[in-house]
């Protein structure tokens, strides 16, 4: 097929990706947008198959074997695994799934870089004693391998933390930063030495060394980050997987990889920034400080007594409430309470109350985590309210029910300048007329600080499993 036509189909694919992402700006069009983007992907893949004979001829001189069989096996295996994973995964495990997918994106970019290195450098030198790869190609191969490797191992560690295969606590040891700097320096040294003389005997070892360093670096980059900071890590890894695809695009000199990789890279960066802002912390604070490791000592001591209430008490208040807002946090996912929460919401609506769900940007373990869970439980998406939209009206809310959230509703972040989380935007539930906090006990949140909300005049604690508590409220309403 004509090379111009191929480039043209890549442009079409790029346009479809852009339209697809654009349609993601509303829940009403998002699903179609995803399909549009998928069509773009199919076009790019088909065009690439049609392009292969020409690419092979340009590179190898002759077209003998394009290895369609191998490519097909790889794609069939990948399709089966991808289909199974996408169908079987539980919605509560979505953060783990996305972390793994990020990792797979990273490893495939690493492998593309490695494969091109293997052919252009190792195999070519073995035959001709010289390499066809210029300095620029070698440099982009390194970028592809480094970013890909960091994305791969970093995402696997994030996955393990989310899945609680390893502890969610940050792992910090002395000299960590120096070690990381040394690793980066080591990788760059390997890259520079190979680029200078790819024909040297030691070149292969240096290359393997660079791969090893990139993987180790990914591990060290993520272990000092605590479990509840995973939204930032996943966003960042998402961005890296895009950048890795971009780098792979420079390796094989293909514009569709660069466009798509840049789109994904930008997307990840934006999400990372949003997450950091929503915690009022800088990216470097999230990445390097080991936040949440020990209980922080800052913040004023809270005076007063937390008042407990029973579900029956809450029922009488809820029954007469005309507006109720649920504020979910990671505890909702842990307790799997999204379905009963929706059921209670519906009962309250039948009772004449206006019901909404206010979601803090960092609630849960990944951006938008709570929204997906509530959507799964059949909560209408126009009831999902963002923090900035609920706060101006919160004084008019009769009852706020906090389900498994803590730091994101901590008024100390607003009022107490000595608090370690001071400045973090919160959902001002304490300004609602009555607040019920569903919690197992008086334990502290991820930030390890006291929550003055629990001691407020208008706050009642309902201790116990969130799912059980909501269930008993549902039962009260039904009787």
């Amino acid at each position, binding site marked *: 097929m004509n090379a111009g036509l191929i480039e043209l189909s890549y442009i079409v694919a790029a346009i479809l*990706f852009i339209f*697809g*992402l654009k349609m*993601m700006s509303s*829940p*009403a069009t*998002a*699903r179609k947008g*995803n399909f549009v*983007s998928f069509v773009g*992907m199919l076009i*790019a893949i088909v065009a*690439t198959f049609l392009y292969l004979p020409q690419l*092979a001829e340009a*590179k190898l001189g002759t077209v003998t074997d394009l*290895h369609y069989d*191998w*490519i097909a096996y*790889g*794609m069939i295996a*990948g*399709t089966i695994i*991808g289909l199974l994973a996408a169908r079987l995964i539980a919605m509560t495990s*979505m953060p783990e*799934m996305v972390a793994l*997918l990020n990792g*797979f*994106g990273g*490893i495939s*970019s690493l*492998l*593309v870089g*490695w*494969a091109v290195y293997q052919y252009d450098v*190792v195999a070519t030198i073995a035959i001709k004693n010289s390499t066809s790869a210029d300095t620029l190609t070698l440099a982009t191969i390194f970028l592809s391998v480094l970013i890909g490797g960091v994305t791969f191992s970093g995402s696997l560690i994030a996955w393990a933390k989310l899945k609680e295969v390893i502890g969610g606590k940050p792992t910090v040891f002395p000299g960590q930063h120096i070690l990381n700097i040394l690793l980066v320096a080591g990788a760059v040294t390997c890259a520079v030495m190979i680029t200078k003389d790819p024909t040297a005997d030691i070149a292969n070892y240096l290359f393997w060394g660079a791969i090893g360093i990139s993987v180790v670096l990914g591990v060290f980059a993520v272990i000092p980050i605590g479990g509840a900071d995973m939204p930032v890590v996943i966003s960042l890894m*998402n961005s890296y997987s*895009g950048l890795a*695809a971009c780098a792979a695009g420079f*390796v*094989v000199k293909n514009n569709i*990889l*660069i*466009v798509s990789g*840049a*789109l*994904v*890279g*930008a*997307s*990840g960066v934006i*999400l990372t920034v949003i997450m950091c802002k929503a915690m009022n912390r800088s990216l470097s604070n999230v990445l390097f400080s080991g936040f949440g490791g020990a209980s922080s000592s800052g913040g004023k001591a809270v005076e007063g007594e937390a008042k407990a209430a029973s579900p029956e008490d809450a029922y009488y208040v809820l029954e007469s409430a005309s507006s109720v807002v649920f504020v979910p946090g990671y505890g909702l996912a842990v307790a799997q309470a999204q379905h009963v929460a929706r059921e209670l919401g519906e009962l309250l609506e039948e009772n004449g109350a206006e019901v909404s769900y206010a979601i803090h*940007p960092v609630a849960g373990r990944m*951006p*938008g*985590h709570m*929204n*997906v869970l509530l*959507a799964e439980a059949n909560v*209408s*998406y126009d009831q999902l309210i963002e923090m900035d939209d609920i706060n101006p009206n919160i004084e008019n809310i009769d009852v706020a029910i906090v389900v498994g959230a803590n730091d994101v509703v901590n008024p100390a972040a607003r009022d107490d300048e000595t608090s370690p989380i001071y400045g973090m935007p919160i959902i001002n539930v304490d300004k609602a007329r009555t607040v019920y906090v569903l919690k197992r006990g008086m334990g502290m949140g991820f930030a390890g600080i006291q929550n003055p909300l629990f001691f407020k005049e208008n706050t009642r604690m309902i201790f116990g499993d969130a799912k059980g508590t909501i269930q008993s409220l549902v039962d009260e309403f039904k009787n």
Partner: protein
Amino acid sequence: MDNQVIYLLFILALSIFLGFEIISKVPSTLHTPLMSGSNAISGITLVGAIIAAGTSGGDQTTLILATLAVTFATINVVGGYMVTDRMLGMFKKKGSGGNK
């Protein structure tokens, strides 16, 4: 630097700006599907992997590496699009039809 690289860098720069423009309009409600969907797009590495495998000539090691890349990238593409579709299928407005 040859012209091709300049051209690719040009595309890169424009795409980054475009990406920032489009993505910043996505509401936080959809951030999870946005991630998994953009993740599927980053599976575009598949194109690179196919090229690497198809142009590997007789070198077996290259072919194996590239085929592995094809497999992982395909998981990314298929898994990413499917799971995004599954999630977005759950986002419903009241009164807009039953459960699909």
